[in-house]
């Protein structure tokens, strides 16, 4: 099924006993569900509203991130959390459902922090808009946030509204030796870094500064006086964003961690100042994005409320559960 409008999305949800909306399936394990009819959002595409002066845009779920990123860039704006897998074809809806943020999450927050509103179809085929379209809104329950990372298991996302920021004038990337101390020191410093990531291998820490070019050079010099290292090109972030380093096994697992655990993930790209690890080898816990391992490695947090909320949004079990 490939709906091209929101009412077609609604019909698609109701057309089969078990359905799952997907984008470009760049995180294929998340939608590898047996027995669910896939609703492909690739025709549900386009930016519907974009007011640069409002710092907001609204787009259909199947809109490729590449289109979003380039449209924002034309107006000097960006999604500060560095959406992932942009070249790979990821869609806006897929980004929300997977809850995947990039290195820029470190400074201003991730997908959950920039989503403002959503239109989605629940398990009974009701098309609803929750949240809002303005940068500040406290009316009603924050369902848009809840849908971030929900893997399409509670509803089919049709349209989303995001907050955006003015893009910094320039960026500068430093490569310094990675230690737990360095991560804490840099993260806690006056330099206000934009991203603090450990490269796969665990030896090197990337620090990205963002702002007016003339100011960044002085900051970089000060950092390099304190730590041995060098300034490198900014293109390395594109490689990280696309997981180009993760060839080999085909396995890719996301694990939320704390900075004191960075050393436990030497093979991983550890992003967001030591708060998330993307592993090409099996970790003890995590969410499989790519590969044949179970969706939830090492189990997941369970509580009775989950079934009650699932029942509230999808009483007939039209969407798979988080365990399917």
């Amino acid at each position, binding site marked *: 099924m490939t709906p091209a409008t929101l009412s077609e999305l609604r019909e698609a949800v109701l057309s089969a006993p078990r359905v799952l909306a997907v984008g470009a399936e760049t995180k294929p394990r998340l939608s590898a569900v047996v027995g669910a009819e896939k609703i492909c959002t690739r025709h549900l595409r386009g930016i519907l509203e974009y*007011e640069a*002066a*409002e710092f907001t845009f609204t787009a259909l779920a199947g809109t490729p991130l590449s289109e979003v990123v380039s449209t924002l860039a034309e107006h*000097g704006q960006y999604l500060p959390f560095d959406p992932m897998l942009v070249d790979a074809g990821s869609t806006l809806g897929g980004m929300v459902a997977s*809850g995947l943020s990039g290195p820029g*999450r470190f400074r*201003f*927050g*991730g997908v*959950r*922090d920039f989503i403002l509103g959503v239109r989605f179809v*629940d398990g009974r085929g009701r098309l*609803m*808009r929750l949240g*809002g*379209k*303005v*940068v*500040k*809104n*406290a*009316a*009603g*329950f*924050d*369902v848009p946030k*809840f849908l*971030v*990372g929900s*893997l399409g298991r509670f509803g089919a996302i049709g349209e989303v509204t995001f907050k955006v*920021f*003015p893009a910094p*004038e320039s960026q500068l990337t430093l490569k310094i030796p990675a230690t737990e101390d360095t991560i804490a020191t840099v*993260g*806690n*410093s006056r330099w*206000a870094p934009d991203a603090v990531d450990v490269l796969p291998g665990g030896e090197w820490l990337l620090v990205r500064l963002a*702002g007016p070019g*003339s*100011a*960044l050079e002085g*900051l970089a010099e000060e950092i390099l006086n304190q730590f041995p290292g060098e300034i490198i090109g900014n293109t390395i972030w594109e490689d990280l964003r696309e997981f180009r380093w993760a060839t080999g096994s085909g396995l890719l697992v*996301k*694990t*939320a961690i*704390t*900075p*004191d655990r960075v050393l436990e993930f030497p093979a991983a790209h550890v992003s*967001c100042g030591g*708060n*998330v690890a993307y592993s090409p080898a099996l970790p003890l816990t995590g969410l499989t994005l790519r590969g044949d391992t179970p969706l*939830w490695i090492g189990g*997941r*947090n369970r*509580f009775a*409320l989950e079934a*009650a*909320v699932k029942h*509230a949004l999808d009483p007939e079990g039209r969407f798979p559960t*988080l365990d399917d």
Partner: protein
Amino acid sequence: MSTAALERLAGLLPPERLLRRPVELAAYESDGLTAFRTRPLAVALPETEDEVVTLVRHCLEWKMPFVARGSGTSLSGGSLPIAGGVVIALNRLNRILKLDPRQRIAVVQPGVVNTQVTQAARPFGLHYAPDPSSQSICTIGGNVAFNSGGAHCLKYGMTSNHVLGIKAVLATGEVVSWGGQSRESTGPDWCGLFTGNEGLFGIALEITLQLLPLAECFHTVLAGYRTLEEAGDAVSAVIASGLLPGAIEIMDALALAAAQAAVHADYPEGCEAVLIVELEGPREVVAFERGKLDAILEASHPIEMRPARDAEERLAIWKGRKSAFSAVGRLSPDFIVQDGVVPRRRLGEALRRIAEMSRETGIRVANVFHAGDGNLHPLILFDGRESGALHRAEELAGRILKMCVAMGGSITGEHGIGVEKREFLGEMFTSDEIDCMQRLRSAHDPFGIANPGKMFPGKEAPALSHVGLHPLEKAGLISRE
């Protein structure tokens, strides 16, 4: 039912921590929305998380409504008691359980006061970003329940954007733990759903907050303008320049007069509006951006520009701004404040229409607002001793809220729906959408015992009365925003 339930409740806490006498209950009858008051059956003062869980489970067993309360600063009546219900006052759960400067997190109990988190973090060069105007007294538990905002939301977001983990007891009696100390998570964002639940889901017992490094340097400018419109145009110019200020605030003439009277704030002669813009960051960045900002503001034809030359002048600018609300109390015996949001580009239009409505009805309206995010704060002045005055003020407030929705905005930016705006929920959401939220509420609270009568329209209205300023507001300890 309630007598037996109350007797059993009395067995759960020592007598001095279960208030039942009218004189003891009086202080809990109202919150920051002083127009409403209701006397609860009892007020429970738990001291431990286990006691809170026991109390909630007792309420569940007896189907007894409960309202969780911190400092009672809600401006939407969110902590207004339920007649025949119990207030669970969380002020004694006031410990910072953990503060880890390396991971930059704090784990706090719900009764911890907002500024205490920043005070505890400051020695490590950190702070807790959300700064509602009542921050010197409001609690983190209340901030979480209402997803409180403040003056720095455009850049740093609201409370929800700083909550990493929540341990809570739901109205089903279930104790859940979501998120944790990582800034990332996998699976649906349960913390995000809980934050802003307005007390309808349950009670947060432990909250993990992210802390941010203190900005090294600030540049705060106050600029006076002949008209509100000119101040609004200046905001548009700042936004269009690509700068991302930490705060952009505007005060109108009536608010300025109030701040002058209250804290002797000094504003440029002859200005009808004052704009405050604040940049922050590493000193090299601020040095560069300040040149850019000053040029933009100079081109916006202000009567006068006053950049803060030192920390003291910066604090004075903020003191005038943050006192504006309570200061308005000097201009009028009573006022109500709304916090609707409009798209930023329509701010000028919204203010013009508010001024028209004010002229039309003869009701004075002062405006102090977060211009950076389109979050209005019209203060509607009235004298509650005049018959029908409160009603007329509420009517005007309602017209303003409807205008916000019609412009594509929201009925609340940071105060929440509470008891005050529940009749307006339907202006923003369809019946399907409200039904969906009600189903979510029932998932957390199948018997409707957690803060019933709030957020959703159509429930029995509590007694409406006029009572003037909140006692703490009169004392200058808190302000409404």
